[in-house]
């Protein structure tokens, strides 16, 4: 079985899709090379990223299919723990170039359904993390937030926080992926977390507000309505580690 591999970047993925058409091959799968365990029954062809080719595919998705489709593809690409996401994207696009702008109306077609389902999961996590991200003030006047999301959502979180907290320096650190979004009151960028160096200590003022917040949190629950299972469903335990009020 033929499988294309790419370097893990969005441009890499689009280049691979370009090559499918250019070479007239029909790979059964497309996969990121990162952490890939090769299976010796399959044939792997590595596609090296080419910005020009990627642009062409990008534009073609936007023009021949739709802006929404482009957004779907990007969001699904960010679901980096989804084993077959690249193949799903590829099949969705193949169908998309046939169906045109109506592709997202085929809500019961598996190729469309899968992409929509993953997109929804990513959207939900982004929405959640816009609320669950917790900043602490560090020495040196930087607000620092460690996160461990299921999807690679920094590129979607950063623009939100640059609007919400525009007059403070902040860093959002994706611990699992070892990358960080860094903002300096003017612009943000995503960088390798190693560049952050040693994380400074928390500012002396920090503890006060943490205490106040925890106090508030413990006071607003209504004992008569206690409902732990609902609580856990809405605020899954895997997020608790970084929630100040749960410390």
């Amino acid at each position: 079985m033929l499988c294309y591999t790419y370097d893990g970047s969005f441009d890499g993925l689009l280049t691979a899709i370009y090559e499918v058409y250019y070479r007239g091959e029909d790979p059964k799968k497309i996969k990121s090379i990162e952490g890939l365990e090769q299976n010796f029954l399959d044939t792997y062809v590595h596609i090296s990223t080419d910005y020009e080719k990627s642009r062409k595919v990008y534009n073609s998705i936007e023009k021949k299919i739709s802006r929404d489709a482009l957004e779907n593809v990007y969001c699904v690409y960010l679901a980096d723990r989804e084993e077959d996401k690249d193949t799903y994207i590829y099949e969705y696009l193949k169908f998309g170039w046939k169906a045109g702008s109506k592709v997202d109306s085929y809500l019961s077609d598996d190729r469309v359904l899968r992409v929509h389902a993953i997109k929804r999961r990513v959207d939900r996590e982004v929405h959640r993390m816009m609320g669950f991200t917790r900043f602490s003030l560090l020495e040196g006047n930087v607000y620092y937030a460690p996160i461990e999301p299921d999807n690679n959502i920094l590129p979607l979180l950063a623009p939100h926080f640059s609007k919400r907290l525009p007059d403070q320096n902040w860093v959002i650190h994706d611990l699992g992926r070892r990358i960080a979004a860094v903002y300096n009151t003017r612009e943000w960028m995503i960088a390798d977390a190693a560049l952050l160096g040693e994380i400074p200590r928390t500012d002396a003022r920090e503890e006060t507000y943490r205490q106040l917040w925890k106090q508030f949190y413990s006071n607003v629950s209504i004992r008569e309505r206690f409902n732990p299972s609902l609580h856990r469903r809405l605020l899954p335990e895997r997020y608790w580690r970084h929630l100040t009020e749960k410390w």
Partner: protein
Amino acid sequence: MPEALCFSNKVEGWCDLDTLDKLSILAEGAKYDVSCVSSGSSRKNTPGGLGSGYAAGFCHSFTTDGRCISLLKVLMSNDCVYDCAYCVNRVSNDFPRATFTPGELVDITINFYRRNYIEGLFLSSAVYKNPNYTMELFIRVLKMLREEYRFNGYIHVKAIPGADNALVEQAGLYADRMSVNIELPSNDSLKLLAPQKNKEKILGPMGFISTKISENKEDIVKYKKKQYFVPAGQSTQVIVGATPHRDINILKLSEALYKRYKLKRVFYSAYIPVSNHPALPAIEKPPLLREHRLYQADWLLRFYGFSADELLSDSRPDLDEQLDPKCDWALRNLHLFPVEVNRCDYETLLRVPGIGVISAKRILTARRVSSLDFDDLRKLGVVLKRAQYFITCKGKYYKGIIMDDAFIRQNLVRENMMQAMKSGNMAEEYRQVSFFSNGYDYGYDYGYGYGYGHGRGHGLAGAGDFGFRGLNIQDRDFRKSLAGIGMNTGMSMNMGMGLVQGPGMDIALNIGGMNGVNMGMITAEEKMKSITGEL
């Protein structure tokens, strides 16, 4: 806490040593006010300012009772001069009092916001000194936040009943949303339980705010006016279960408020006993299931095109406890069904149980490119377990369904309950309904201790349990046989057993599954009544 720590980089310090205690007292006092949603207002960031509203709002955390925390919801003061019987803050209640200074509250708000703890501020208060004084305190907080700190986050502020319109108006220029709580659904109950309030004091400011909102909307169009007045609209809250009002009274009130005052939301708050005033009911637990059903009905009013009269009537003044209001309505209107999913219009789709706003829209989209069958509907998110009785796909019914009121009702009730069990929402309340109401309910919900006689009848429909149901053996005609036995095997083992003769009784037994061992009994007499009544 050391005083110096309270100063943020900008605030001229206001934190007293006892800020922590104050926050704890004043958050405690505000928590019963449920209308804490921050939506409907998207403020753009002003240059150099802090924060932005976002139309859909975020939950920043959840309370252990499963409510969304998005705003710093506190009282300015709990030191009330009024004496409302249902309220902890009433002047006659002997308990600790506290009042924030505006600076203190602003400091907490700004610092919480910078840490992304909150979406904004929800400012409420007891009547401190007098209504105008309290309102003026609010205005100082709002002004400081919006002007000094250029805070663009969400602000919800209460209009204190009895305050001057001029002050209400001023606050409205800074707030995203305002609310005046109705609390009690009639003037008589206000007189009895909140002697210093009356209908005029509440509806007065409400009407004033609603007029101002629409004037402001026109001004913005006409004069390109920049300053908004309460852009996210106003809301109110009604307490449920503190007075003898029926659901129909409450729902009709809401309907009128939506129409007349263009309210954005009416919130319902199950009464939690806080005092033993003789005019208040002595209840053990807040009526949460009732509150839940009211929210569902309210949703139907706002988004599904239903009217209160369709849902309730004088002869049926309360919402069904076992069944959500939409299923209940559909069952009473079976003559309107089935509808053909591939053809009927949006409004009709919305009225089908199991089809919500999102799935109805998806159906419209999807059927433009291909006609849909049941399998497609499932993929679009339609809850077929509910919808199956009310729709056809390409002219066909869902396979194997039986169009019989009682049968459908039984299945929908079970579906309602399974859903509650699965989501954890209202699970406990459902258990309550099934445990403590009469045997009829019990057998129904718990063990299906009796069978359903449809046509030949399925003897004992096995003890339907909330776990997984497996094989279902059902073969006896109840009305003829003396006993019927139903059994489900699967993930849990359930057994139902019925005896129908003389003073016999019905036994349902669940073993295993989520609920451990449950047993239910109803008398044969009751059972016969329920069966014959249903069929």
